[in-house]
């Protein structure tokens, strides 16, 4: 995650927390949630607020530990990069001002219960605090784990399931990771490493702890404090938007997705074309390479885009631009919260294994809320892959200004008629899938869409691995 700049305000003994620069194209951001209030003691790296840009939502960590002295930007206010969001009283000032606080901080660092049960929203903030307090310890364990050696069977199982062995506690001699430890981890942790489109990385925002009575200041009129004057206690923001399932207002992400999709439907001339593909070779190859079918799909789509560059393009108004590079967007579901489309830039330069690694990394970072705006910009074509529930067809909505999106659903075994070299027909059981291409009829015509799909099919059915 990009770190925010921190500067000590001259003479005040305070450290500024500024709106971070989250990507080359981002000039401003909106504060969508404060996690702390003035007077709160915070740890270094603890999240102090949530911000949103037109590309992405993220969190701002505290540059130092200390006490929140001022909160300067009200909720839902958009400010430019570099604007001071809050000020934190440095450790020395806090220590001098409040002797009894020091042991408390130490206690928090030891991962014990933080002593702030009287503060509003203590539930969510306690999570953040515990998380940051625990991180040095786990980092230490990780460094130790790098020196560990693993037996062949342990490495093989880890490789097959993409397990990070440093995460596993060993029960063998000297903490050695035994086969049983990996198997137990697999059994318990299977749900943690969810593939694309399954679990939301976001904490449920709606589960608000019972908020104690707030100070008098109205929530929508926080008073920025002037340096030098005593800090004014700013009211905490109202709880984050309630998800639609509970009947409240749509979340910010849902609203953004909705606007984007509606604009696309209103703008582009949507058509969807389908083709059936025999995935036998992909299934065999992916088992051997231990990667997902999505990686093979990505590679086949890239190859097809190179052959039909008219689909690797943007249509902005009446301006149509074909791209040489394939910057491939992969839709990642964030569960109930919504959807995000991180982009693999220059994806045409990557092998199947390389694509698999990039997809995995993007999905992980999307779930961990670690994507930067640069990770989601510049896409020239998008693949969406929601097939794990068994659905077989969809009509995806084009991700403007792109002109095409490919929908990859479930691979299902079907009885199909195959013809051998001598022209004899027989019925065979084959893993089949139906690819759906939504394309913009303003930019191209159906014949090209069909040719593109046929090319994707040819590449998938011709997959070989040496």
């Amino acid at each position: 995650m990009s770190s925010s700049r921190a500067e000590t305000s001259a003479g005040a003994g305070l450290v500024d927390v500024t709106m971070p620069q989250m990507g080359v194209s981002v000039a401003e951001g909106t504060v969508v949630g404060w996690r702390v209030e003035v007077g709160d003691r915070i740890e270094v790296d603890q999240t102090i607020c949530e911000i949103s840009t037109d590309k992405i939502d993220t969190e701002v960590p505290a540059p130092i530990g200390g006490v929140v002295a001022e909160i300067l930007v009200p909720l839902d206010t958009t400010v430019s990069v570099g604007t001071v969001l809050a000020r934190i009283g440095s450790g020395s000032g806090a220590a001098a001002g409040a002797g009894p606080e020091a042991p408390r901080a130490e206690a928090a660092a030891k991962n014990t219960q933080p002593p702030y049960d009287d503060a509003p929203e203590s539930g969510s903030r306690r999570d953040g605090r515990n998380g940051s307090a625990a991180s040095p310890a786990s980092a230490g364990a990780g460094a130790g784990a790098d020196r560990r050696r693993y037996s062949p069977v342990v490495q093989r199982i880890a490789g097959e399931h993409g397990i990070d062995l440093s995460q596993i506690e060993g029960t063998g001699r000297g903490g050695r990771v035994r086969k049983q430890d990996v198997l137990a981890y697999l059994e318990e942790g299977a749900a943690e490493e969810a593939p694309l489109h399954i679990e939301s990385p976001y904490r449920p925002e709606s589960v608000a702890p019972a908020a104690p009575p707030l100070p008098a200041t109205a929530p929508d009129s926080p008073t920025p404090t002037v340096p030098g004057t005593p800090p004014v206690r700013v009211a905490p923001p109202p709880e984050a938007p309630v998800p639609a399932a509970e009947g409240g207002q749509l979340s910010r992400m849902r609203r953004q997705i909705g606007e984007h999709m509606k604009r696309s439907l209103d703008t582009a001339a949507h058509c969807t074309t389908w083709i059936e593909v025999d995935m036998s070779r992909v299934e065999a190859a992916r088992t051997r390479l231990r990667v997902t079918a999505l990686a093979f799909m990505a590679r086949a789509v890239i190859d097809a885009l190179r052959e039909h560059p008219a689909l690797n393009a943007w249509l902005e108004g009446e301006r149509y631009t074909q791209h040489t590079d394939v910057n491939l967007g992969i839709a990642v579901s964030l569960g109930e919260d919504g959807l995000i489309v991180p982009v693999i830039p220059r994806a045409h330069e990557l092998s199947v294994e390389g694509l698999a690694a990039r997809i995995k990394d993007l999905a992980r970072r999307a779930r961990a809320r670690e994507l930067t705006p640069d990770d989601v910009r510049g896409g020239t074509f998008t693949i969406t892959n929601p097939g794990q529930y068994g659905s077989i067809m969809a009509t995806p909505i084009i991700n403007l200004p792109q002109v095409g999106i490919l929908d990859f659903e479930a691979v299902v075994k079907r009885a199909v008629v195959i013809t051998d070299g001598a022209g004899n027909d027989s019925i065979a059981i084959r893993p089949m899938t139906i690819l759906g291409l939504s394309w913009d009829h303003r930019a191209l015509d159906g014949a090209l869409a069909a040719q593109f799909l046929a090319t994707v099919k040819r590449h998938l059915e011709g997959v070989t691995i040496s």
Partner: protein
Amino acid sequence: MPTMTYLQAISAALRDELRADDRVLVMGEDIGVFGGAFKVTDGFIDEFGPDRVMDTPLAESGIIGTAIGAAVVGMRPVCEMQFADFISCGFDQLVNVAAKMHYRQGLAVPLVVRLPSGGGFSGGPFHSQNPEAWFMHAPGIKVVAPSTAADAKGLLHAAIRDPNPVCYMEHKHLYRRVKGEVPEGIEETPMTARVARPGNDLVVIAYGAMVHTALEATEDLDGASVEVLDLRSLVPLDTGAILDSVARCSKVVIVDEANTTCAAGAQVAAHIAEHAFEDLDGPVVRVSTPDVPIPFSPPLEQAVLPSVERVREACRELLAY
């Protein structure tokens, strides 16, 4: 099914084969009138006569050489070495003549050499050896080593009916100690391994008397699930069964009563290292007799032979790894 000792099972197999097939004959030192040093052929001479139950001179090369000639012309001789140790006198006949006959002349040598082997009874250096590996190293000879009464009978049937020379390793220490139900009639035991006890955490691979040592040592090992694989046949070696067990358990202890260097277990360990590397979760551990002749002194002999305690300790160590 009748219950027999290991020794009675061997006698029964010989008797069944002598009754079933005129071509079968047994020969050896003092096996006729005296009934054999261990009484395996007790009473045989009365039933089958001296032509089929032949007392021979004290000359192992003569016994095996004669048997090879008989086998080549279509008989099915079963030679008894009084002690396995004495086969060194017949080594040339067995290794150079019998084993290579098929490759040189295309002739089958359906010959069985019974080898009372193993120690544990203060027999000293000339009466306690486990020489099976000598013959594993000579292409053309099969080597089997039963651990139970049923397999003692079944493997002897299989050996007599096999067209190749077969060394049948019968463990003296099991003769009267091991008892079990034995199928009636002639039922061959396949020359494959047998899972003596299934398990998941560790596999002990053994054959002959060491199967019993392994079973006893791992009967209650702090709740661990320990498999015991009884090889039964050393040539051919059931590598499929070995790899299956290793894939399941990932930790392996191999027990040999023979001297360590180049013992049957060394071959098993080498095969696992080459073909099951990615299944291993610990070093392949061997428990065997050190490279010394078997001492006559009872305490010294007990000190060198793999004991229940040594096998148990090796398993504990590896389980904790």
